[in-house]
């Protein structure tokens, strides 16, 4: 492949690629995102390869390993074009049937199609599945059409068109104005207006300037940046190059978590290809603009996702935040002006350039424009990645797209914004999801984690979990965060252990406010959010814990297992399952649990077929303990 030296060469190449593309040819696209990979999609791929070879169909059928389709719950996912049949939970043994039925005869394999749990009907086409149908897939849309290792796939689907437009028809100022007009806000958590950030860096006097992609997605329960970086790395690169052109930077960094090996691999591959095609390097498409990108792997520290900490890490130092009296946009990497944006933010840029700011603002709400990818996880039927326009309600996301709560249970809360976000109770389900609305009710957009919790989740335990997580991830540089979080963890541990007193709750609230006000960086400042939001909306649960009850029966110190003598048949299953020999009883006689020995693992409850094992909570347990 020769380098493109002129924009028109690239356009010509695109046209030849598009002409070559045979839309009628059968194409098997297999999701190879991390979720499907974990479900052994590679075995499905090799089964297809074997079968196609055996039946001499290799030339008639294209095969594509694509990025994440988003519907991780039903993986591995296989889509057969041009019919657009979508098969879920495909196993290697299903492959011969798919080949004879679909590829040779064009008929769908009914048993592999998605079944609508409401109507029980099978849905053949990918686009008709409610999970997909109710989404607006803008940034994430190409993931399922592209082989992340193929730059040609991306170019065919109008990739790098925005770059050509930028370099040939727009001045840096025009690009900046367009992004400002689009009112794009940072997708990484803060929601800071991207255009303003760019402008600050652009207007800073020092040289050189840097641009950075933040793919240090440390939030537990969020993986949209990963899927984008793994599935469509070129869209991020294109956004970054356009941004660098607008800002006047000639060097960029992509900071990827080392825990995402596939993202690292695909990004490095994409950079290499873009360099080969002349879309990176010196004098890009004869515009006189130079730009290079380096990949920097993060070594596993949640706090490194904070902008100033991330920059320290790139400099080869410990990723600790520093006070930001001067913004990193003015003095960042090596004390030079540095513009850092999240993966999703950069990926939005080519769309704005291609379709204009006006088109972009037509989606979403006036203050939160465009779409947002959420990772919908936890106690929800359709776990996966969801892209929706801003302003959609939580109810629509959870029930229409997510398919509701499994096992007929009741929704208790939704946690958004990662560990620093808050828990939203059921009464706010009809609230439109955008940056400001979420902030107003004590949570935040964050990077887009959305964890659904059912009635069996203890909110105090959740608060304890997050504060514990953050106190472990605190870098320890500033005292409020280091000591404050440690003390908060202690109080929360006491509450869940039934050892706390009423005044502890007040102390916890006071402490939370102090940490919020005085911590150095965003990690500390937002760390009390889970505590404050749960106290605000679920105060009764805290109070119940103080009385020695755990309403959801989660906190071990406050629950007891007993056997209902009227239901016990003496089968002995629970006795066998108990690893600490706390259960006694003869065969066909009523069994008994010794609470002194019981470690409350719940194995007996899991094993009993007669629902004879009961979980109880209440004061008497606490009294016995004290």
């Amino acid at each position, binding site marked *: 492949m020769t380098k493109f030296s002129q924009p028109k060469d690239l356009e010509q190449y695109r046209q030849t690629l598009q002409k070559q593309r045979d839309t009628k040819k059968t194409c098997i696209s297999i999701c190879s995102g*991390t*979720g499907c*990979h*974990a*479900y052994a999609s590679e075995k499905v791929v090799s089964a297809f390869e074997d079968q196609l070879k055996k039946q001499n169909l290799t030339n008639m059928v294209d095969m594509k390993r694509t990025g994440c389709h988003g519907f*991780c*719950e039903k*993986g591995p996912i296989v889509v057969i074009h041009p019919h657009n049949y979508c098969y879920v939970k495909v196993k290697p043994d299903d492959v011969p049937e798919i080949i004879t039925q679909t590829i040779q005869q064009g008929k769908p394999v009914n048993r592999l199609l998605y079944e609508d749990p409401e109507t029980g009907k099978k849905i053949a086409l990918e686009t008709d599945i409610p999970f997909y149908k109710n989404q607006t897939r803008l940034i994430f849309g190409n993931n399922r059409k592209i082989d992340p290792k193929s730059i040609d796939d991306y170019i065919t689907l109008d990739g790098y068109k925005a770059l050509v437009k930028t370099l040939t028809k727009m001045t840096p100022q025009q690009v900046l104005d367009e992004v400002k007009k689009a009112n794009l806000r940072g997708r990484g958590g803060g929601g800071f207006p991207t255009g303003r950030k760019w402008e600050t860096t652009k207007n800073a006097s020092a040289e050189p300037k840097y641009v950075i992609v933040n793919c240090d*997605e*440390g*939030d*537990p*329960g*969020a*993986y949209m940046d*990963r899927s984008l970086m793994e599935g469509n790395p070129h869209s991020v690169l294109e956004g970054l190059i356009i941004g660098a052109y607008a800002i006047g930077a000639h060097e960029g960094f992509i900071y990827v978590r*080392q*825990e*995402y090996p596939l993202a690292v691999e695909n990004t490095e591959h994409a950079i290499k290809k873009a360099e080969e095609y002349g879309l990176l390097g010196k004098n890009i498409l004869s515009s006189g603009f130079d730009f290079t990108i380096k990949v*920097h*792997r993060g*070594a*596993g*520290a*949640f706090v*490194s996702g904070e902008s100033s900490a991330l920059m320290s*890490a*790139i*400099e*080869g*130092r*410990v*990723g600790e935040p520093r006070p930001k009296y001067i913004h990193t946009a003015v003095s960042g990497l090596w004390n030079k002006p540095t513009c850092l944006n999240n993966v999703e933010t950069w990926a939005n840029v080519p769309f704005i350039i291609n379709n204009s700011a006006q088109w972009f603002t037509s989606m979403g709400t006036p203050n939160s424009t465009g779409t947002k990818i959420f*990772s919908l*996880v*936890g*106690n929800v039927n359709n*776990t*996966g990645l969801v892209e929706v326009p801003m302003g959609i309600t939580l109810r629509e996301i959870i029930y229409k797209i997510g398919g509701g709560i499994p096992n007929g249970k009741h929704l208790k809360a939704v*946690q958004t914004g990662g*560990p620093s976000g808050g828990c939203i109770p059921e009464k706010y389900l009809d609230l439109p999801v955008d940056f400001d609305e979420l902030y107003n009710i004590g949570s935040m957009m964050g990077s887009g*984690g959305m*964890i659904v*919790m*059912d009635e069996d*989740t203890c909110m105090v335990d*959740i608060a304890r*979990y*997050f504060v514990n*997580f953050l106190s472990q991830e605190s*870098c320890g540089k500033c005292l409020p965060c280091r000591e404050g979080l440690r003390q908060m963890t202690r109080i929360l541990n006491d509450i869940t252990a039934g050892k706390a007193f009423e005044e502890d709750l007040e102390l916890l609230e006071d402490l939370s406010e102090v940490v919020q006000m005085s911590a150095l960086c965003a990690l500390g400042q937002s760390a009390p959010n889970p505590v404050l939001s749960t106290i605000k909306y679920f105060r009764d649960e805290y109070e119940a814990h103080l009385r020695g009850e755990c309403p959801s029966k989660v906190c071990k110190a406050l629950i007891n297992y007993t056997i209902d003598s009227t239901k016990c048949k003496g089968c002995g299953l629970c006795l066998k*399952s108990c*690893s600490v020999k706390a259960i006694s009883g003869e065969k066909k006689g009523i069994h008994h649990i010794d609470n002194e020995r019981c470690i409350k*693992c*719940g*194995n007996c409850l*899991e*094993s009993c077929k007669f629902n004879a094992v009961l979980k109880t909570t209440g004061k008497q347990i606490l009294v016995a303990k004290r």
Partner: protein
Amino acid sequence: MAKEKTKSHFVGVRLTEKQKKALYTLQKNSDLSKTDILLRGLEILSEYYALGLDQPPLNIELKKLEEEAIQHLKALKQIKRREESVKQMIQELREVDEIIDEYGGEKNALIQILLKIQEKNHWLPKPALLWVSERLSIPMSQILHIATFYKSFSLEPHGEHLVRICLGTACHVRSGPKILEAAEQYLGIRSGETTSDTKFSLESVNCLGCCALGPVMMIDNEYHGKLTPSQVPDILSSYRIGELTMTEEQQKLAPIAQRPTPQQQR
């Protein structure tokens, strides 16, 4: 062939002291190593035995030679082992060198360099760190600061199989902690430790990024999803079966470098 000739030359000949001395000088001048000579001497003497030429003085000589040979063999083995370990060390340092060169010896790339070393060895050996410190002229304290700050680094060797249990929020609300407990109970270690037979290291992580599978356990590069605590022991024990090529005693004695890596075993 040359060996055969010399052998036949001496067969059936009874050596006097003088002759023996002559033989030694002869062999000294040849380019044979001392062990070779001793082994050959033993060979000759054993043939004497076979021919029924067993006589007391000869017996004593034989014993002496035998002892000497054993001594030399021991020394030789020791030297070879030492040589091997020195070679191994040099090799390891060379690999470190290569990694440093890959990043052009830049100080800024310290974290990337450490990540590569960690990837190769599954831990950060001290000699490697000292070497990095020397090459990049970064003080050791700073390197240890980084090595202890980031989660990916380990200053202790890991077991053969790395068991990672996800405790991310999505797995937490789907009872991830119970999976960790089950694994801790089965392996008899706590999170962050390695079993005494160095088979397993157990770790808890904050998110493996495949929340649809929760609760998830990842062993080396394989995912085990939608787990219940009762499944955990079976899965873990399947990693023990068919992989024990050495006895437990041997495994304890074998230096870490010689132990087969999991990939080799598979």
